[in-house]
């Protein structure tokens, strides 16, 4: 059941709320505000959905009128008709919207009720037709499906698209039995594919995200303590749970370029500890590819064909498009935006921004521009460029204060030393930059202690000792082969005894568990980023953007040289200019 559907302006005023209009119970907490703060303003509006507590949220924009439509429902229910409903609501509301009006209750409530019923009815029909179709999967599936570990995953069970996606190995068995009589070759392919996700999840296979575990960080951010790498592994998941094809999804397929590798990468983001969410997302994206391969799904392919006919965008004549751009009535279409966005994306990638990040950024910008009316005498490329510039500026602007000195003083008042832990991969420059930060703090008359918790690399402690000697600050060390967590804890105790203001902790490049190091019970996330070796990269500043986007943490310092004074603050405007040059 849909908990709430909210319509509000981008300026923040709520225009219509289904809770209030229909007299339902209000939402617990404020998921909408959380959505805005952690997703839409973080340039993640290209994501499919957002979840908070036990609510899941989906949204859509009407960029021309500056309206946002958000649907909230219980996370455990997987409502299919939400996207559909949002699009219908958007259409209807745009017709009755008037910038001067602020009360839409009488008019819109009835319309909404009707739309809701229609959407639910459509979803029911879809479900029934799918049930009819997929009651044909095969014997090989049966043996896999009885795998006990599969309990975590009933999503791959295409046949039973229940509203309550609970884990049901019974379902799997039922479908398998029904399947027996039809020994259809094509479905075999489909089925083998169905099995993969489970294996992928169980094995927690190779993480194809490279050294930096992006999805892990995101899950940590969602306060998930489980060290579950299963959901992160999407490389193996080449599947769909169902050849799902509502008209809406078909449209989605038509619009995007057919880039299978991109779609795979899409899965790494909103990674969720509940496999359900992830598989749902995958289903949406992969629906089309299964469709193309299987010719036997007659009714479905028909639907897809319809979409394909509408597919090739109307090629406007050159003159008429010029004229429209001058007259200013050109409504931005996804197809118009694609070339401009692609060019921008390539430019970002030449500046060393990670491909997935560039992709997500482009999606977010596209979501915010689609359907907007162009002003007169503006070209599409300039509009896209401006929008991208704003988005980049927003991402790089720190979300909270990066005034370290103030935080240190605050900690001083509380009588405890301020601890900064430096983490990072091998060779990135932690020890050098640690010394630079120490120097900077010393310049502001703060007493600093170093803690040598890099007990693994030979020479690390000596290196730190030399820095300490040069800077004339105390260093706490326990030699090599000791547990870094213990060393850190003792260092902090020593520092508070000596009334030291700041403790700088150096760690080894290899993945020592963060959890151990923190003396505080709550797991800490990244609070700030220190970019190193900035002087060596000329204008390839994309790494700054990638880091900030993924972690959500601001860049506090930039290291740009080998001496003690080479430490700067990040100049956001110049970075944005360099990225888009």
């Amino acid at each position, binding site marked *: 059941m849909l908990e709430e559907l*909210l319509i*509000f302006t*981008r*300026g*923040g*005023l*709520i*225009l*219509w*709320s289904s809770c*209030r209009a229909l007299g339902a119970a209000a939402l617990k907490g404020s998921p*909408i*505000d959380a959505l*805005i*703060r952690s997703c*839409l*303003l*973080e340039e993640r509006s290209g994501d499919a959905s957002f979840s908070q507590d036990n609510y899941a949220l989906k949204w859509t924009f009407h960029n021309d009128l*500056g309206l*946002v439509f958000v649907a909230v429902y219980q996370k455990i229910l997987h409502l299919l008709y939400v996207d559909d409903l949002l699009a219908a609501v958007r259409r209807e509301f745009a017709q009755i919207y008037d910038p001067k009006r*602020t*009360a839409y209750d009488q008019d819109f409530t009835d319309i909404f009720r009707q739309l809701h019923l229609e959407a639910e009815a459509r979803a029911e029909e879809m479900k029934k037709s799918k049930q009819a179709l997929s009651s044909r999967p095969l014997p090989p599936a049966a043996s896999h499906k009885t795998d006990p570990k599969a309990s975590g995953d009933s999503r791959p069970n295409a046949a039973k698209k229940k509203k309550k996606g609970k884990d049901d190995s019974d379902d799997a068995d039922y479908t398998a039995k029904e399947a027996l009589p039809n020994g259809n070759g094509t479905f075999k392919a489909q089925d083998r594919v169905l099995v993969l996700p489970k294996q992928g999840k169980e094995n927690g296979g190779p993480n194809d995200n490279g050294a930096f575990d992006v999805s892990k960080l995101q899950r940590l951010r969602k306060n998930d303590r489980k060290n579950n790498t299963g959901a992160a592994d999407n490389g193996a998941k080449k599947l769909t749970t169902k050849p799902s094809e509502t008209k809406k999804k078909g449209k989605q397929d038509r619009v995007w370029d057919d880039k299978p590798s991109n779609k795979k990468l899409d899965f790494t983001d909103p990674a969720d500890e509940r496999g359900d969410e992830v598989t749902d997302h995958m289903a949406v994206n992969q629906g089309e590819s299964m469709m193309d391969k299987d010719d036997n799904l007659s009714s479905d392919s028909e639907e897809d064909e319809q979409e394909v006919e509408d597919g090739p965008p109307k090629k406007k004549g050159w003159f008429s498009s010029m004229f429209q751009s001058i007259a200013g009535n050109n409504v931005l279409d996804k197809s118009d935006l694609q070339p401009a966005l692609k060019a921008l994306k390539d430019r970002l990638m030449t500046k060393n921004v990670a491909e997935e990040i560039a992709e997500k950024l482009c999606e977010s910008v596209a979501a915010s521009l689609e359907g907007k009316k162009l002003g007169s005498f503006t070209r599409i490329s300039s509009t896209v460029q401006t929008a991208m510039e704003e988005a980049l*500026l*927003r*991402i790089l*602007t*720190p*979300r*909270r*204060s990066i*005034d370290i*000195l*103030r935080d240190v*003083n*605050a900690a001083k008042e509380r009588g405890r030393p301020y601890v900064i832990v430096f983490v990072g991969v091998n060779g990135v420059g932690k020890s050098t930059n640690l010394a630079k930060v120490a120097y900077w703090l010393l*310049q*502001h*008359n703060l007493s600093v202690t170093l803690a040598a918790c890099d007990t693994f690399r030979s020479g690390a402690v000596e290196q730190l000792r030399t820095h300490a000697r040069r800077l004339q600050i105390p260093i706490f060390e326990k030699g090599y082969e000791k547990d870094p967590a213990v060393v850190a804890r003792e260092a902090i105790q020593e520092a508070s005894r000596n009334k030291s203001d700041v403790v700088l902790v150096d760690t080894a490049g290899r993945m020592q568990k963060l959890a151990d190091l923190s003396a505080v019970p709550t797991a800490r996330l990244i609070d700030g980023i220190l970019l190193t070796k900035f002087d060596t990269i000329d204008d390839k500043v994309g790494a700054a953007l990638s880091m900030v986007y993924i972690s959500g943490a601001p860049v506090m310092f930039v290291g740009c040289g080998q001496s003690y004074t080479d430490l*700067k*603050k990040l100049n956001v405007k110049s970075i944005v200019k360099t990225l888009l040059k």
Partner: protein
Amino acid sequence: MDEWIRQAEVWVGQAESWIRQQPPEQIYIAAAVIALTILVFIAASCLKSSKSNTIVLSGLSGSGKTTLFHQLRDGSSHQGTVTSMEENNDTFVLNSEKERNGKVRPVHIVDVPGHARLKPKLDEVLPKAAGLVFVVDAQDFLSSMQDAAEYLYDTLTKASVVKKKVPVLIFCNKTDKVTAHSKEFIKKQLEKEINKLRESRNAISSADISDEVKLGVPGEAFKFSQCQNKVTVAEGACLTGNVSAVEKFIREYVKA
């Protein structure tokens, strides 16, 4: 091309001879009329723009700016608000003054989003401001005190605010709630926090400083009365419609 040039030359010659034919007084009169019209336009535009009628609402996210905006405009806060992603920008006659007879000058109010990521928007509107209302959440003050002080500090040290002596009203919102703090308390706390900020910011090396103006008197604790532009504190509650302090402030600086 050559043909056109020749044609143009012929026309110019004709125009010249036509002008020569007119009696000189007429030409002088024509020129004088044109000059006069231009002067009148310039004077009118100068006079009009010397008194800007823009008031900027700023403050932390969740302090009640959008609610205040709608109270001023429509007299009610409608169905509530969510975090703003964009500014609210409108020129209107204050709702409480709609019944007044005679000419009431409309006010241009800009409600800038308070979210940290959207801070650059404030820089865009400040140069045109005739007054600034800084909205503070009086109920939830202690937890957001540091951020509010920092935001206020950043605003008060901008060159555009100080040079033009933009008056600032610190509006303590949500005083209808039982746990709200008084405006005197809020004022004192803000002064203390800004004082601390002043010290930590001034300690930074000159290359890092981002504020353009130094606040207060060195050596003395900071007080709002030390600012070059006038800073006042008032309280009210937007949800119940108690916004008379803001309206008074607006009327003071945007003459009717």
